[in-house]
């Protein structure tokens, strides 16, 4: 996903002279082509994420479309107040990118597990929160958030995620993507859980539906309404704490749809997510997902 992201960013930057990339001393063997092609629109701010985000806000005030880039919790939790107050309160055109969502950096430990940021970030007004599911979604979402003027967060996996969608796609802000049409049960997946979920349905020859949600905020309420009309049961899946994550957002969405009488009755909803615990053992991504039953 990070390769898909940087390639898309380079492509966009060729036609959009406002795009600026700041990294927090990270991006080895990823960001070099951007730095070489656009040296005056690239900066390594050092291991200093609060400063990086403040600088991004300043550049955005002066008209740049600024991407900040680091891994795990460093571009988000470490500088949460700069994000909330400098970037989002002033509604600035800053795009925050984190590589290594969920347990992608499993063996590196809790410092590198990005498992709370979706919940924390989606409470901040003005901020768009994205977690694309494969490299194709990553390209489409990158392009969409550049078109949108305002703060966005982009959660990526690492490198080498398999492709799920057959064809390149375009996506509007806040839209979900139907992947498999089915019946009875629909799986709602966000971020890098997509491939696992897709394979599970295919391998077990299930008749379930699968919907990918590259946007956790704003949530596709129209899409949720259609899903509710076609399925009895919903399962949400995410590599994130259960509390306040993607599944919580879906629950809230259905509650609001019910309250505003857009649907008569919400479907049964099961949430698969991390059960309010830290991991303190090493483990590859697949191992840690199994440990916390992030599986169907």
């Amino acid at each position, binding site marked *: 996903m990070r390769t898909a992201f940087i390639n898309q960013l380079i492509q966009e930057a060729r036609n959009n002279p406002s795009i600026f990339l700041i*990294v927090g*001393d*990270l*991006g*080895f*063997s990823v*960001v070099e082509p951007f730095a070489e092609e656009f040296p005056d629109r690239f900066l*390594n701010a*050092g*291991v*200093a994420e*609060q*400063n990086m985000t403040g600088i991004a806000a300043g550049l955005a005030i002066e008209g740049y479309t600024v991407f900040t880039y680091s891994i795990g*919790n*460093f571009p988000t939790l*470490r500088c949460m107040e700069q994000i909330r107050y400098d970037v989002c309160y002033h509604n600035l055109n800053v795009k925050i990118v984190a590589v290594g969502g969920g347990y992608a950096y499993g*063996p*590196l*430990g*809790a*410092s*590198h597990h990005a498992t709370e940021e979706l919940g924390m970030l989606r409470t901040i007004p003005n901020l768009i929160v994205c977690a694309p599911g494969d490299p194709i979604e990553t390209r489409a979402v990158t392009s969409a958030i550049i078109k949108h003027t305002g703060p966005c967060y982009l959660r990526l996996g690492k490198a080498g995620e398999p492709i799920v969608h057959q064809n390149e796609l375009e996506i509007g802000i806040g839209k979900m993507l139907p992947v498999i049409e089915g019946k009875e049960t629909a799986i709602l997946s966000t971020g890098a859980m997509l491939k696992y979920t897709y394979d599970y349905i295919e391998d077990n020859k299930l008749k379930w539906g699968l919907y990918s949600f590259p946007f956790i905020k704003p949530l596709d309420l129209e899409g949720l309404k259609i899903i509710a009309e076609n399925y009895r049961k919903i399962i949400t899946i995410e590599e994130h704490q259960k509390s306040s994550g993607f599944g919580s957002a879906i629950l809230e969405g259905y509650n609001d749809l019910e309250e505003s009488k857009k649907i008569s009755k919400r479907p049964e909803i099961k949430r698969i997510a991390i059960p309010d615990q830290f991991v*303190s*053992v*090493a*483990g*590859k991504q697949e*191992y840690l997902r199994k440990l916390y039953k992030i599986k169907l």
Partner: protein
Amino acid sequence: MSKKNSEEFAKKIRLKTIEMVYKAKASHVGGALSMVDILAALYSGILKYNPRKPKWNERDRFLLSKGHACTSLYATLALSGFFDVAELDNYAKDGSIFLSHASHKIQGVELSTGSLGHALPVGCGLALAAKRKNEKHRIFILLSDGELDEGSNWEAILFAPKHNLDNLTIIIDYNKIQSLGNVKDVLDLEPLSGKLKAFNWQTIEIDGHNHEQIFNALSTLPKQKGIPTAIIAHTIKGKGVDFMESKLLWHYKSPNDEDFRNAIKQIE
């Protein structure tokens, strides 16, 4: 222990570190090797500790702020008797407590670190607690040069002298390389000693691979009563293996079979 013993000890730590990184196909060997001589000196005569009682209250507290370099700390702790050397074989394996960033679930590791710029503020808390409780143990924090980019460190650097934390010593592993370039090109720290002095610290500059200099600096603390000490240790990233030395690549790369054999041969 003597300087000679600590040099021997450093050799053993290097060998074990390289083996761990090789077996686990892990990163960060460069930064693990640059601090080995400092660790060897600390654990062979400077720090007060009891491996059978890792939480003994009178122990000196050692915090590794650059948690990504934990392999050489784990090796040092095992070789110092905190746990069995064989346990290092679990490093980075599924289900193991030997995370590839320093983990406080391991005997002898005081604080989990891996997000840079956290240990020095915590160390100020430990030092302040010792002062308030009139306890005599000391606090040592090992920092990297790259992490001095973090504002949190400079907040703590401002704090410690104000509160007369002379029981606190920081050692800076000044290996001149960070994650995406040379320190002087990313955010130059110089004049580093001048900056620390201006923040009211006592400073000492040493060759961080010269055991005599390390021992001299660490055995005469605090340099001045009432004032914290900063030891700027000039080091070489990847020290001990010629093809790793001062190469950014070895922040990431893990040794293949041939690299491994070469590295071991050079150190033995």
